[in-house]
């Protein structure tokens, strides 16, 4: 799809979330809730003693998984799958440049994911919850964050050219 048309669609989804819910979109928060819930199930004392997990476990009256972001991200998986299926783009594959081996690409994907998880928690959001949502609200911290995301990625791009080009 033409990127501007996709952007318009995304913008209207974001606007609908503001009007209906009074909040924007998100992604990383759902994973944090899922991780906190899983840790709580395996090691309840550990999770309850940790200030970070506590913020995602709620008051214990309902399951922390009954959460807006968790359901939204489940929808993202379904929506992505449906769109891919309708366009015949479902395929088991690894996206990488021709000059990098598959195992190396997967190791880099893991490292990138881990950095992203840490960064998103420090910044109180990811590209969805901060850049997109906060960008539209002219939120000061979101714009600082957005500039730093682009700066960080461009600064390292040259070193990683073998992974992509």
């Amino acid at each position, binding site marked *: 799809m033409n990127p*501007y048309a996709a952007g318009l669609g995304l913008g209207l989804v974001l606007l609908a979330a503001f009007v209906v819910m009074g909040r924007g979109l998100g992604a990383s928060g759902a994973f944090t809730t899922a991780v906190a819930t899983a840790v709580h199930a395996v090691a309840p004392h550990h999770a309850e003693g940790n200030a970070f997990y506590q913020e995602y476990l709620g008051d214990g009256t309902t399951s922390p998984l009954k959460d807006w972001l968790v359901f939204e991200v489940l929808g993202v998986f379904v929506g992505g799958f449906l769109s891919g299926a309708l366009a015949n783009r479902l395929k088991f594959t690894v996206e990488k440049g021709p000059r990098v081996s598959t195992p190396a690409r997967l190791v880099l994907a893991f490292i990138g994911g881990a950095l992203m998880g840490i960064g998103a928690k420090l910044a109180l959001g990811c590209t969805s919850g901060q850049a997109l949502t906060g960008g539209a609200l002219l939120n000061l911290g979101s714009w600082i964050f957005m500039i730093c995301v682009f700066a960080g990625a461009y600064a390292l*791009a040259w070193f990683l050219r073998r992974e992509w080009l």
Partner: protein
Amino acid sequence: MSAPFYKFGLFGDETSLIVAFVTGIAFGFFLERAGFGNARLLAAQFYFRDLRVLKVMFTAIITAMVGLYVFSRLGLLDLSLVYLVPTLVWPQIVGGLLLGAGFIIGGYCPGTSCVSAATGRLDGMVYVAGMVGGLLGFAEVYPRIVGFAKSTPLGQVTIPQYFDLPYGLLVLLVVLMALAAFAAAEWAEHRIGGHAPDENALTSRSPRLNTIRRLGVVLVAGGVFATFAGSPYRGPFVRYDAKQLALDAGGKTDRVSPAQLADWLIAGRTDFVLVDVRDAAAYGRYHVPGAMNVPLATLTPDFAAHNERVICYGSGDGDGAQAALVLRSFGFPGAYAITGGVEAWQADVLFPTAPNAKAPAAEQIDFARRAAIARHFGGAPRDGSGAATPATPEMPKIVPMPESAAPAAPAPVRKKKEGC
């Protein structure tokens, strides 16, 4: 219309999860359509080969930003109720840089990795696993870095607020900046990526009014309107549905009885604001415990959040009812008046009159309860003779409620985080 719908209680938590799922489907759909399931396409952004990340993100941002502005300015949406992530300068700088590093190393961000995994990419699935690993690690070191993670807080603040700029002007500037960035991106794609702008491009040679050109015209027009139309946060503008106000006032559905308020106060309910609209002197002599003083003449549209339940009272029935009417026309659908004002509160709650000795037992039991409530608020029950009419009480001495009379207080709710 009162938006955000959820914050005005138009639907509950269960329904909100369905809304979340549907919103997510649309979100995931457009991410996939944008090509964001493919890490190579995403990474091409950082080699100036294909700048679709910038195009999609900023088209979405300016569309939603202008839409929000227009809805708010027309009074359809209360922007002050839309959640803003608090600003923490250093954590957001460091977090942003880490996220940028994760983006170019891993090829995705959290949202796009879900789409990638859902369409069968192994690298997307491994990336999600890496994110889970990172979160587990972060939780373990969190107690040691919590000082940094909460440092340099500026609170919930927008750029126009912080730099004291007109909100609308900034809307226009961001739209113009985004359009300039799109033109620059297309130029870079041509020079570095080697593909000339196609017919869908902003800088296409074809004179056709394509999607981005049409959208650009609409958004610039919105931005110009915003520049001259002022702040989208609620100003002193009044909108009301006269018919509805008349129905509420006539049907007394905008009232709360003193006894009901007493029960709420004893139950420790915190889901309402109690407002005394008399002048400061009268408030100083006596006010209902927990009430704040906002004299009728000083009520403004921003004195409380618009989805708050506001209970007003003044002297007699009139003042409180007028305050509730003013607040409802300011866009507080949850504004109520105490029937009979502070005098009714004193007569019914503080100094209830005992029923006749021959009254039925149920009435006697009810009176015992009301007497306990009266003592709790520093009043005293009166016997049936009506001889000893007490003076207006001094500020109340609140005594603990006996178990039987006190409605059970709900446990305080620890709220989950609203942000990401």
